[in-house]
């Protein structure tokens, strides 16, 4: 293998492994991916994995145990660039939807009772940027093929990824859907990162925000729009908080005064 090939590691923390599988699902391009880069570590794809220095680390999943935290800190030390891939790594995912620490502890006790994890300590699920500096974020649940390939293509050449800079609404309009918000259906399209092709709205279901918030999302406007449509504060909070994890915690905290 030539020396100048960029060294890449693909890692999975707590999640469903969907992002790693999506990479494997790039069947046509898979040979090119392995040809263009020196994939040093990719547990989902191969068994001979090397734990060394690397140029880029792609990390999927949320940090949910002490062991994962240690692993992640180690990855950061070994990698020049760290890219969070997928909603769980970017925002924490559904397991991070509990915003208060005490709520997580209560939930943990109710699920596991007194059973203890024997080889590591469980932690409240957090996105990877709660523990390390993250260079780039590739959103998605799972990540989209098109955006992944373009990101991969750019980062192995040392360029920053060029992600879609628009919300789901743009893709929704490309598909010529009727706006669900105009029909008083609580859709989160305006604040959610694009890339899914507006798949839910294409099937007449509102966007629930599973790709996480788009940078610069106007939560305030979405909040008051939904309020105007007759939805109450509790409903809107839960809606917006379900997928965005910590991506929206600040905003939800700020509108605390608005509670009925």
């Amino acid at each position, binding site marked *: 293998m030539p020396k100048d090939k960029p060294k890449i590691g693909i890692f999975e923390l707590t999640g469903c492994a969907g992002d790693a599988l999506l990479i494997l699902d790039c069947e046509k391009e898979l040979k090119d991916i392995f040809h263009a880069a020196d994939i040093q570590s990719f547990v989902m794809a191969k*068994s001979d994995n090397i734990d060394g220095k690397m140029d880029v680390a792609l990390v999927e999943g949320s940090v949910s145990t002490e062991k994962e935290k240690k692993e992640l800190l180690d990855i950061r030390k070994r990698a020049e660039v760290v890219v969070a891939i997928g909603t769980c790594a970017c925002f924490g995912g*559904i397991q991070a939807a509990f915003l208060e620490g005490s709520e997580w502890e209560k939930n943990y006790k109710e*699920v596991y009772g007194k059973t203890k994890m024997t*080889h590591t300590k469980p*932690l409240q699920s957090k996105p990877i940027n709660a523990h390390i500096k993250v260079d780039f974020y590739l959103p998605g649940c799972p990540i989209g093929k098109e955006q992944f390939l373009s990101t991969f293509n750019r980062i192995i050449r040392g360029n920053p990824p060029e992600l879609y800079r628009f919300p789901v609404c743009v893709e929704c309009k490309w598909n010529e859907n009727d706006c669900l918000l105009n029909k008083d259906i609580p859709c989160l399209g305006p604040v959610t990162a694009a890339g899914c092709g507006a798949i839910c709205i294409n099937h007449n279901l509102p966007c629930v925000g599973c790709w996480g918030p788009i940078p610069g999302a106007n939560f305030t406007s979405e909040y008051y729009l939904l309020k105007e449509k007759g939805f109450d504060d509790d409903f809107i909070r*839960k809606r917006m908080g379900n997928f965005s994890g910590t991506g929206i915690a600040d905003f939800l905290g700020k509108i605390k005064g608005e509670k009925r």
Partner: protein
Amino acid sequence: MKRIKIDHLARVEGNGGVVVTIDGKAVIDVKFVINEGPRLVERLTLGKTPEEDVSIVPRICAICSISHKYAALRAMENALSVKVPPKVALFRELMHMGEMIESHSLHLT
């Protein structure tokens, strides 16, 4: 006494390891280690509306999202004694089979 320790099992969904203890020619102990962190999905739908429920459960797994949605729908229908028309049931089954084929063939890559 020999020990074989695999920290990360490759090519499986989720994180797991195996520790095998061998004495001479006999395997005397096999331990499966689950490294997966808790996601508390068991509590995921509590306090949610049925409509929220069907939109959240598919995100338990991005690749087999249909199975989760299908299970949630059936659970709620059972709870409310709702019977779906045969055509709907067939469509769902078709969708589920499609997912199974896709998911299994993915691991052949």
